[in-house]
């Protein structure tokens, strides 16, 4: 007899605490976004986005910083996308089921995903900066980030390929279409959503990264002339202003606002694409 009221009380309590916890999470997130964006947007102007930083970043803009960021991201994607998609295609389409080599590759990518970003920075410093003699450079930073986002690109591209119905593969094989043509004309177009989502998520992760870059792409604020020049990315700029530059907060706010807006946009697009893609899949399975 006393089970029911107790259960009702527990129900009510769970519901209340659940709402409180969720509201608190939303409030903290709101606090962060609505502290950074308004403070930052005040400082934003066209010249801020195009000028070179001066006075250690307290004055001037972030033009050269944005150029360096884009170059680092370009190098990162140039290395991670071909490697990642190629690996995913091999794992999904060529490796035999139960292949030991495929299991080893998967296992090692899972492990790679757990490596802390600062360790990627140390690795990049030893291998790319020193052994490959790239020095503190955009190329070294981009290569380091490329290694870092590789597991993400492989994982989502693999999921995209796995979602392609087997009838396509069977049909292509029955028509004696070569594997290369099957991939190029059937499988990759059908799996494109997965690849795009993976690239977007990887891009977001790379643009957010700081720890892996402070010893690899360095702090230089001048306009990079080649990929072998050092260049600071937007996230490194925020770190430097917050840690090493007294009275650097207002410019750090503005840079953080730019970075936050771009990253929120990338993540929203990736989520929307992933959602639409999932919906299409369920629609297909019900047909």
């Amino acid at each position, binding site marked *: 007899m006393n089970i029911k009221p107790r259960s009702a009380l527990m129900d009510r309590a769970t519901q209340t605490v659940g709402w409180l916890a969720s509201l608190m999470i939303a409030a903290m*997130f709101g606090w962060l976004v609505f502290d950074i964006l308004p403070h930052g947007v005040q400082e934003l102007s066209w010249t801020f986005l195009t000028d070179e930083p001066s006075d250690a970043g307290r004055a001037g803009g972030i033009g050269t910083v944005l150029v360096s960021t884009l170059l680092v991201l370009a190098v990162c994607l140039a290395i991670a996308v071909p490697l990642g998609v190629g690996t995913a295609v091999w794992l999904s389409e060529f490796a035999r089921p139960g292949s030991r080599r495929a299991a080893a590759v998967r296992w090692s990518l899972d492990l790679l995903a757990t490596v802390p970003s600062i360790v990627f920075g140390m690795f990049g410093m030893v291998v790319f900066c020193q052994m490959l003699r790239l020095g503190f450079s955009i190329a070294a930073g981009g290569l380091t980030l490329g290694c870092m986002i590789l597991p993400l690109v492989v994982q989502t591209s693999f999921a995209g390929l796995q979602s392609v119905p087997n009838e396509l593969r069977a049909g292509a094989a029955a028509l004696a279409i070569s594997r290369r043509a099957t991939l190029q004309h059937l499988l990759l177009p059908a799996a494109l959503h997965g690849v795009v989502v993976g690239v977007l998520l990887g891009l977001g992760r790379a643009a957010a990264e700081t720890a892996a870059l402070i010893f690899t792409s360095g702090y230089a604020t001048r306009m990079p002339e080649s990929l072998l020049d050092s260049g600071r990315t937007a996230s490194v700029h925020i770190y430097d202003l917050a840690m090493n530059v007294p009275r650097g907060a207002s410019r750090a706010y503005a840079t953080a606002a730019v970075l936050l807006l771009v990253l929120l946009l990338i993540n929203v697009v990736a989520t929307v694409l992933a959602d639409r893609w999932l919906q299409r899949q369920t629609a297909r399975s019900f047909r």
Partner: protein
Amino acid sequence: MILSRLRGLRPPRSNSWSQRDDWLERGLRATAAVSGSVVLLIVLFVLWQAVPALSNVGPVRFLADSDWRPTSSPTPQFGMLPLLAGSAIVTLGAVLVATPLAVFSAVLAEFYAPQPVAWLLRRLLELLNGVPSVVFGFWGLVVVVPLINAWQPPGQSLLAGTLVLALMLIPTVALSADAALHSISGDLQRSAAALGIGRGAIVWSLAVPLARRGIAEGVLLGAARAVGETMAVVIVCGNIVQLPSSVFDPVRTVTANIAMEMSYATAGHRSVLFATGLVLMLATGTLAAVAGRLRHQGART
């Protein structure tokens, strides 16, 4: 199904397997080999750089040396205990703060909230997941640290690091708890409700116990992320190497120490920093491996 075996099955060479396909497979296999060897290279290079420290200083002195004075001559001190303790305490604190909040919000999204609210909450957590750690750190510095400073100076402290990290972990824990609860909620909820079991009892006596592996997996992955996190802690924790005696004391974590000292470290000091990097990889690798094992067991039962 025969069809499902087609994937990975090499068709006979006479028809659809052309010469170019051979080259394609070789090329793709090579990219997979490169991708698979990255983590091996990382372990090898970090280990290689840490060897001088491991052989000259040795793990015993890492723990027995009384202080962390890597640059003092003639005898530098490499006592890592305060750094290890800093990382461990900040991680533990962040996990303890984040887990209840995350689990309750996942329970709300799965069992109580109307559909649109649950949707909104999940989207919010995904967005929070995409906020860069340096932005979390900067926000902590301009918002959280002054608040703590007004209460108990200096503000840059263990507490600030714990709170900022907790906020960063919430999405990891909440999204995986949500997924775990979701995978068991539908049928279970209907049959339990048909037996007249109340919703509160369904949540705490059935759903959460059944989803415990998934929840624990999220907590472990969150802890791995916290151990490896650098930027947020380096900005808000104050970076003084000491065993904290209260939550208001500044601390320095292993990651923050690497970020601060690597740029000027030479020879022995540098090698010791790589040894701490090795410790970090060991810690995150172990946490993630245990999480992976839980997922495996969960899939079997």
